[in-house]
């Protein structure tokens, strides 16, 4: 601890020294690496074109394959948190869409934070060196960052340097007294309970410091919840903790904490943090996935990484010996029936605890398959409750693989591969009871917050039992309704023990044109999670507008049934150049859907944090879409907007009219790369107040570079011409109204 403090004090001193000599003025970078020092060849003297260094790495076609890498551990003094990696470059051919650089950033021993390719068109075409910024989420205080930057050819580009900037301190000098931590322990908290939170302040100097701390909690849009002010006297190198209010009065959705530290009226440091209060993580969070069972050492870092990236829910897939019959294994270690990996129970429990300790919700995976040796043993013991002649999945098996798994020969079982599973006869009430018992036992054992239970409620299959009898004797005529009843019954059984438990189902590529059936409605009801693969499964011929439409269609359908749409879209991300990637998030969030599987390495922290903070504008099931004549917004701006209008009714007659504005991708097809998307500025949007209402307030909210709201001016109370200051990928416009004759404004 002492060593760390000294290091930070030295850093503070070095940073100040650096500032003193920097021609750029205040430089918030924690570290900076001139690239020419690392490559030692192909360097050129930079002319005064905005480079920070005399020499730059001059990459030209023919040099492809040259790599600049840094794997040192100099950066352990960068604490966990949000950063921006700044790459200062000068592309020389602004029209090439071919990638010229590949950048991989790793948090050593934890995860790959980014693996992206960059084309000249991903940079600002200024003709000078420009900063390109990559949001990063560092997981651990004592981890190091390393990076590899490779030149791929295709076009010339000069690289000046790489730097790291803490997000919350952007634009400020390194403070002598610093707000080290702010907020509660957990990212997503339950409502109706105390949420202890604190501000931690450290004096990095060798002198006594008297400072003033101000912390403000903000909810909704610009609604101040509380404001705490404290005078602090800090001994040299001292750290103090300030307790913050913990009662949020049953409120849900996002909370923004904004802290400022000042000395003699001079601002020393400021920090903002977000957290959420949400009994169902779908109110605020995107959906990630991780294997927590095989890397217990790094689970805490992984948890912090997801938290920092603003992703509040993780799914653990394919860990169970059998995804149906063995969700609460008695043994200490096993090979998972579907995932074919060795799992230690204690590792899984510790990994889940680490993730939940960060206030993330953890979901298990379940399925209607009796897989692996455990599943086949269940089938053997319960032959009349098993469907033996099911074709395809749920009826495929490989005896060599079963034997390899029984022998614990993981390598051989993976070499054989394939899929080995039978199907339980879910039409049998005893099997349905087992399903509920397994879920409850698994929650007791591991502490899951929810389950993605695929193929649940399939009572339609398995009419006859092993003996050729109809079981039960009177199979339901309406299997759809029977499936829905079964799902509701299952939920009631689990909810009796765990009322906040979230159910979900991957409905595959459904987004079908036919109306949701009873089973689907039952799955979506009461905050259910509807996962969907089809939205992200666009072929090379698929286009962005199609993806946007699918996202809106699926999200609206789920909401109409009381649930939340979670679309697997990030499978597209590796195929996209940097400029295109944010659309995977922007289009989903704008539609009111959730992104799966969100991950820190996508570097889409701003979008995830925006949803966390302003989830009520995206995921309120009470909001209803406004279409056609009902849509009070009108704009001729070059933006997609017509599908993104909703209305929320708030207490006291207040209404929020919410409009998403998405800058259309510059190309039609998803498979086509495109250049840097420049923000559009000052977009006029007309809002005509519905009869009997008057406009009271309006805001523009943006996710980038970090979630923020900006109050908009308007003149008339019934028809307002609003100017949206900026639209990069996605901006949300909110207009609030009151009844015409209400006697007060908020």
């Amino acid at each position, binding site marked *: 601890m002492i060593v760390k403090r000294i290091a930070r004090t030295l850093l503070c001193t070095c940073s100040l020294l650096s500032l003193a000599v920097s021609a750029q003025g205040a430089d918030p970078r924690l570290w900076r690496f001139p690239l020419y020092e690392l490559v030692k060849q192909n360097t050129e003297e930079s002319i005064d074109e905005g480079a920070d260094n005399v020499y730059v790495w001059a990459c030209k076609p023919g040099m492809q394959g040259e790599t600049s890498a840094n794997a040192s551990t100099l950066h352990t003094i960068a604490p966990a948190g949000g950063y921006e990696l700044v790459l200062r470059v000068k592309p020389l051919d602004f029209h090439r869409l071919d990638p010229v650089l590949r950048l991989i950033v790793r948090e050593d021993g934890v995860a790959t934070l980014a693996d992206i390719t960059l084309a000249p068109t991903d940079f600002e075409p200024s003709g000078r060196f420009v900063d390109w910024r990559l949001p990063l989420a560092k997981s651990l205080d004592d981890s190091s960052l390393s990076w590899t930057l490779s030149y791929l050819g295709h076009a010339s580009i000069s690289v000046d340097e790489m730097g790291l900037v803490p997000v919350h301190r952007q634009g400020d000098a390194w403070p002598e007294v610093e707000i080290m931590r702010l907020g509660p322990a957990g990212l997503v908290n339950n409502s109706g309970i105390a949420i202890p939170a604190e501000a931690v302040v450290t004096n990095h100097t060798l002198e006594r410091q008297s400072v003033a701390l101000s912390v403000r909690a903000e909810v909704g849009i610009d609604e101040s919840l509380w404001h705490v002010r404290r005078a602090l006297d800090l001994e040299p190198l001292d750290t103090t903790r300030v307790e913050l209010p913990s009662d949020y009065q049953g409120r849900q959705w996002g909370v923004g904490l904004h802290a400022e530290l000042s000395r003699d009226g001079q601002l020393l440091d400021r920090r903002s943090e977000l957290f959420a209060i949400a009994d169902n993580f779908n109110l605020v969070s995107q959906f990630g996935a991780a294997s927590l069972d095989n890397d217990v050492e790094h689970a805490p870092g992984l948890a912090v990484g997801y938290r920092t990236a603003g992703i509040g829910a993780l799914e653990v*897939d*394919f860990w169970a010996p059998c995804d149906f019959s063995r969700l609460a294994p008695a043994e200490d270690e096993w090979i998972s029936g579907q995932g074919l990996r060795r799992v230690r129970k204690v590792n899984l429990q510790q990994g889940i605890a680490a993730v939940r300790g960060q206030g993330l919700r953890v979901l298990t995976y379940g399925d209607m398959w009796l897989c692996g040796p455990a599943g*086949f043993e269940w089938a*053997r*013991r319960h*032959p*009349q409750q*098993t469907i*033996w*002649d*099911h*074709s*395809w*999945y*749920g*009826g*495929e*098996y*490989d*005896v*060599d*693989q*079963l*034997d390899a798994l*029984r022998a614990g020969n993981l390598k051989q079982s993976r070499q054989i591969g*394939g*899929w080995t599973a039978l199907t339980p006869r879910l039409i049998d009430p005893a099997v349905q009871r087992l399903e509920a018992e397994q879920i409850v036992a698994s929650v007791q054992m591991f502490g899951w917050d929810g389950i993605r239970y*695929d*193929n649940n409620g*399939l009572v*339609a*299959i*398995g*009419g*006859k039992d*092993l*003996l*050729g009898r109809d079981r039960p004797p009177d199979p339901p005529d309406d*299997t759809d309704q029977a499936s829905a009843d079964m799902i509701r019954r299952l939920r009631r059984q689990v909810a009796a023990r765990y009322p906040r438990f979230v159910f979900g189902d*991957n*409905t*595959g*590529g*459904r*987004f*079908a*044109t*036919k109306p949701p059936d009873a089973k689907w409605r039952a799955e979506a009801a009461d905050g259910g999670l509807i996962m969907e*693969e*089809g939205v992200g499964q666009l072929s090379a011929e698929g286009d962005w507008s*199609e993806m946007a*439409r*699918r996202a*809106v*269609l699926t999200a*609206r359908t789920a909401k109409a049934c009381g649930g939340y749409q979670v679309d697997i879209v990030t499978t597209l991300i590796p195929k996209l150049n940097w400029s295109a990637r944010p659309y995977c998030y922007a289009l989903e969030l704008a539609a009111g859907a959730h992104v799966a599987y969100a991950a820190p390495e996508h570097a889409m922290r701003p979008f995830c944090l925006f949803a966390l903070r302003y989830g009520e504008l995206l995921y309120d099931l009470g909001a209803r879409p406004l*279409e056609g004549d009902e849509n009070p917004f009108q704009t001729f701006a070059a933006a997609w907007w017509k*599908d993104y209008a909703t209305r929320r009714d708030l207490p006291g007659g207040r209404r929020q009219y919410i409009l998403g504005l998405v800058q259309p991708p510059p190309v039609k097809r998803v498979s086509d790369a495109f250049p840097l998307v420049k923000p559009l500025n000052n977009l006029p949007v007309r809002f005509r107040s519905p009869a009997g209402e008057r406009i009271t307030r309006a805001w523009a909210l943006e996710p980038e570079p970090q979630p923020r709201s900006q109050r908009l001016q308007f003149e008339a109370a019934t028809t307002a011409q609003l100017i949206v200051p900026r639209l990069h990928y996605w901006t949300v416009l909110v207009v609030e109204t009151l009844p015409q004759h209400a006697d007060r404004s908020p």
Partner: protein
Amino acid sequence: MNRRAIFRAPLTLLMLLPVLGAAPAVEELPHWTDEVEAMFRSLPLGAVDLSNVADADASGGRAAKVSRQTGYVNSWHNYRTLSPGDYRATFRLKVSDNTSPQPIFWLIVENANVDRRLRANEFAAAGKYQDFDLPFSITRPTLVSTPVRGLPGDVEGWADRVTITMLRRYGDRQQLRLLGYQTAKFTLPADASGVLLVRGVYHEFWHADEAFKAFGPQTSSAVFAVQVGPALRGFPESLEALGRSRLVVLADVPAAALTVQQRAMLEAYVEGGGGLLVLGGPYVFGLGDWHTSEILAGLLPVVTEQHYDVVECDPPQRLEIAPAWKTGQAAGPATMPVVIFRHRLRLKPGAEVMVSAGGEPLIVAGKAGRGRVVAVLATPLGEVAGDETAWWDWPGWPGLLTHIGEWASGKK
């Protein structure tokens, strides 16, 4: 990773799987019916789906529709594995105008290389559903689907359902003829030794490794079942290779796991003096559709004639070894074990009961040509309660199986 998307397509069909179980003399040949459902095409928000519509004339009240407004329409591809035979695919279709020569439907039997492009004026009447048949034949198990493609134009078309009817099942001999297979003459070599164990899902319950340890070299083959059906990995590729083993043990092996050539090879092997031991379970005898193979059914000392041939013994039935088959080792402990689920099959003339349970045959010996065949009708399914011992947990079981194997392989 998720399997749901692939799983969904055939789901509706599973309810319609035929019950195989008619008397063998007049086998009720199966048929399958699929409602035609147009495949998803993304629509603008709020747009009505024009390609899946209500239609009172349709058998399920809904039909897939093609029109100028819908554009091209594809139906879901429902796949199923059909066994060799003659079939007829019947497409139930309707058009709004039967005077136009406009191509309206493209009917396909995928993997059977049969299709037909249908014009509107080939319909007898407008506004009335009409059946169009596409006959086809397959000579080996084949994954077949019957998509309907709707071709847009001024004439509107509706597709209601597709029914596949099996007209004639090809027997093993007929398939062999179609394949030009020449049955080989075979005599088990005098120096043949060892055992070939073909492992089904619960093979370990039979303790075959222990029982046949003294039989010489053991070779092994295993069942794997994929969408197109079950198959064997590691089964000898020639009769000569098969003949190196004195005994072949099929532990819960479905008929379809053996190709018709492998069945013929096995028949030649047994008739040439090889021993065959067929062990029960959820994928063998009737449940393994052995009754659909005249070769396999012909080798057995029992009659298999329907799919559902397993019964639950309630209470579990105790094994009784016939006096002639008792040996010191096989007699085992005083308390005999029980069987819980068993195949119930009739004896063929000349068959001999080695072990019975509840007064019914459980292990049956017979001869086929110069070879010997034993059918073990016990299964390793179920759980015993109380102090009973299941046969697979009975210490005397390996010894009994050794004894049976010795007889089947001609050692005794």
